[in-house]
């Protein structure tokens, strides 16, 4: 009987195999080596607004423009572009002879249709004052209702990806990923795996790599192990604790590249606690940034004395190193009316305790430990901060209903390669979901709007804006970020894009 029941179960297992949909790809074309990318970022469906980050990184989809290492726009599917003197009409001339993966030609109408789709979706383009997106014979025209200088940077964001007309169904939903990039989709299995193969009709030089796969492994330790044991060729987003170990592996080269993502403490400036700028300064003075960066991030250079890391040239301020000054912090708190109560926790004149709640989330695994470090550090100046670990959506929601007191979060200032686009969202009057809360500054608003107009001195305006943010501290910078990448020594020509827009697979070759 056991044998019979085993037989039934075995048959079930065999029957279940074909349901996997496809035979293992390696079996289909033996000899063609697959470059295996392992990363923690899951993807959801074929819509570029949701999963475009993976399509762009794997070289499947392309945008009209790309970004150079300084974040300046460079040609991609658009060969050149121009702006009318009033800043309202942008013209992007398409690269001739480009074909989509289904063989259809890239036309201005196809590009305009993709951009109209992006404008209707939850994408950076939807936040741009677009009046119309039109097509001429060889160019896409974007008409704005008011000037918006960083538009080219918005078009370099993955959500502005250009897909073939056949990629959309009648209702305008994306049904398939048919892009123009050096690689095309071989197998698309969201949320965990994407297999791509070389697209022989690409407009650029023929890539040396024939096939590649993208596998999501959310556990940092598992990713490190896959790199170490040779199960991954390109391993992204290494956790700081595993970097030192992987550096010792003869199989791997480990690169760490600063990325423009800053861990910040968002404060509700409309609340009892943080309305006073002196209190915000006291909090900033109480943070042991060096300690956090050294112990939790394993790199003291990640201590953030300002919002913008040195790589964001133009926005980064020349500044002294971050320092901790508890004495000064206590003085500022006392000036603001907070004095130690019987249990050491501060109380104000009306005997209200300085007990606040900090919300954070687990998408970035270092955030909860940083939050608990801050909890201990704020305790030293008499602030009782509790930590709530939840979902990232708790922050925009708490912002909207006003219940958020503090939030520890990681904010990418170059999701659109020009930080201005993110800053306009985050620090608009009254604040933004992922920026200031209950705080406005007319001078900052003027500086940011001067930057989005076509005239003026952008360098001075950027420094002015960064200076205001450092002085007023609507959010407190804690630590900058770096991207750790483990590269198999079997690969040659790997470079890391600090904006994480592409893994540049088309530049990579097998070294052995």
């Amino acid at each position, binding site marked *: 009987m056991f044998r019979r029941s085993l037989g039934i179960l075995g048959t079930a297992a065999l029957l279940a195999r074909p349901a996997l949909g496809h035979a293992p790809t390696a079996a289909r074309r033996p000899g063609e080596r697959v470059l295996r990318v392992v990363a923690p970022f*899951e993807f959801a*469906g074929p819509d570029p607004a949701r999963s475009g980050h993976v399509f762009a990184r794997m070289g499947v989809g392309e945008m009209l423009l790309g970004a150079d290492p300084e974040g300046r726009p460079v040609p991609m599917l658009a060969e050149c572009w121009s702006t009318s003197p009033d800043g309202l009409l942008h013209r992007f001339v398409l690269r001739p002879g480009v074909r989509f993966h289904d063989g259809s030609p890239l036309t201005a109408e196809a590009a305009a249709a993709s951009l109209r789709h992006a404008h209707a979706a939850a994408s950076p383009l939807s936040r741009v004052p677009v009046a119309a997106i039109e097509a001429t014979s060889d160019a896409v025209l974007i008409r704005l209702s008011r000037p918006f200088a960083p538009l080219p940077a918005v078009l370099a964001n993955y959500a502005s990806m250009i897909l073939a007309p056949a990629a959309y169904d009648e209702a305008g939903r994306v049904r398939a990923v048919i892009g123009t990039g050096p690689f095309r989709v071989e197998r698309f299995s969201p949320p965990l795996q994407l297999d791509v193969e070389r697209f022989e009709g690409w407009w650029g030089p023929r890539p040396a790599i024939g096939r590649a796969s993208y596998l999501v492994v959310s556990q940092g330790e*598992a990713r490190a192990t896959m790199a170490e044991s040779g199960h991954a060729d390109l391993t992204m987003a290494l956790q700081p604790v595993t970097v030192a170990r992987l550096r010792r592996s003869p199989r791997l080269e480990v690169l760490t590249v600063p990325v423009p993502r800053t861990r910040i403490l968002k404060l509700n400036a409309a609340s009892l606690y943080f309305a006073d700028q002196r209190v915000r300064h006291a909090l900033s003075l109480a943070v042991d940034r060096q300690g956090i960066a050294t112990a939790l991030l394993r790199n003291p250079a990640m201590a953030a004395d300002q919002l913008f890391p040195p790589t964001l040239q133009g926005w980064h301020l020349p500044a002294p190193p971050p320092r901790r000054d508890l004495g000064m912090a206590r003085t500022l708190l006392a000036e603001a009316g907070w004095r130690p109560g019987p249990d050491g926790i501060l109380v104000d004149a009306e005997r209200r305790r300085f007990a606040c709640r900090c919300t954070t989330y687990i998408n970035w695994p270092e955030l909860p430990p940083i939050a608990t470090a801050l909890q201990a550090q704020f305790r030293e100046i008499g602030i009782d901060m509790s930590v709530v670990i939840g*979902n990232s959506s708790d922050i925009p929601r708490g912002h909207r209903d006003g219940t958020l007191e503090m939030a520890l979060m990681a904010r990418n200032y170059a999701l659109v390669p020009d930080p201005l686009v993110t800053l306009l969202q985050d620090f608009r009057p009254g604040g933004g979901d992922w920026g200031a809360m209950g705080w406005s500054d007319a001078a900052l608003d003027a500086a940011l709007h001067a930057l989005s107009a076509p005239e003026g001195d952008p360098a001075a305006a950027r420094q002015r804006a960064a200076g205001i943010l450092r002085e007023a501290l609507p959010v407190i910078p804690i630590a900058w970020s770096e991207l750790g990448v483990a590269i198999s020594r079997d690969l040659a020509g790997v470079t890391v894009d600090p904006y994480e827009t592409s893994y540049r697979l088309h530049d990579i070759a097998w070294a052995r």
Partner: protein
Amino acid sequence: MGRRFLDRFLRPVLMRLVQPLLVALIVGALGFALMAVLPGDQAFRLAAARYGPDMGDAAAAALVRQELGLDRPWAVQFLDWVGRLVRLDLGHSLVTGEPVLQELTMQLGYTLALAGVALPLSALLGLPLGLLAGLQPGGPVDRIMLGLSVLLRAVPAYALGLCLVTVFSIHFGWLPPAGFEGWREFVLPALTLALGLAALSARVARDSVAVVAASPFMAFARWKGLPERAVVLRHGLRNAAIPVIALLGLQLVGLVEGLVIVESLFSWPGIGHALVHAIFARDVPVVQGTALALGLIFVLVNALVDLACALIDPRRARAET
């Protein structure tokens, strides 16, 4: 005569047919109700799951709310689901936009493949050891097995999986700690599941065998001169198998619980992994679809277990008539 026919054959069959329908309705309603009472705003959750933290803001949530009609009353949304279920349409995932049925088919394939390896593996590990232990209750094999079983049941699947990864992936470098492409990727997640299940099935098999081994009919079989092999195979195994088969059915509960953990740990794109993500994202159609699939599998397995037990033990069928 007609009455007896109805009682004897038609009613059990009808019961079996009504059961899945009831399960579908209850599971769907429960999934809906539980999602509704969870804290957090569904539109914000969905926006975060769709667009990631950087793009998941109130504007994205407003678009999601408008697109999906999330501000409709809960009752309307639920009736909408029931209406579609009648037409065998499970709807679309609110996160990916893909049909739930299509996603479920793929995920169920991966999960059944993993379960299809883990269950026989647990039987291979647990049953012979249980049999050995049960033939000599209190002997050294029995004692060692007891210790091992307690240990393996006490360690959560998550910790057990990490231990296996540490040994087989990190220390020896034999097996990948994640992925789902070939047989090597099956080993660690299947073993993690199988060890936990084997610990229990070994104990049940041991007790069952011990009871049967000490029973008068075994002694009688020996007295009447049957060779030991025939005694164990014909009288021992068959009688000891009944509780074990029933347990294998029950183990499905443990298997689902283990799958949720193991699939998340080993990045396995199965139904457990999908369920966890759908709950976090408040992706109600996926939660309902997944729960429905699991519920129907329970019903199916229970029916199969009943059938198997009736086949092994004809007394049951007779007693029921």
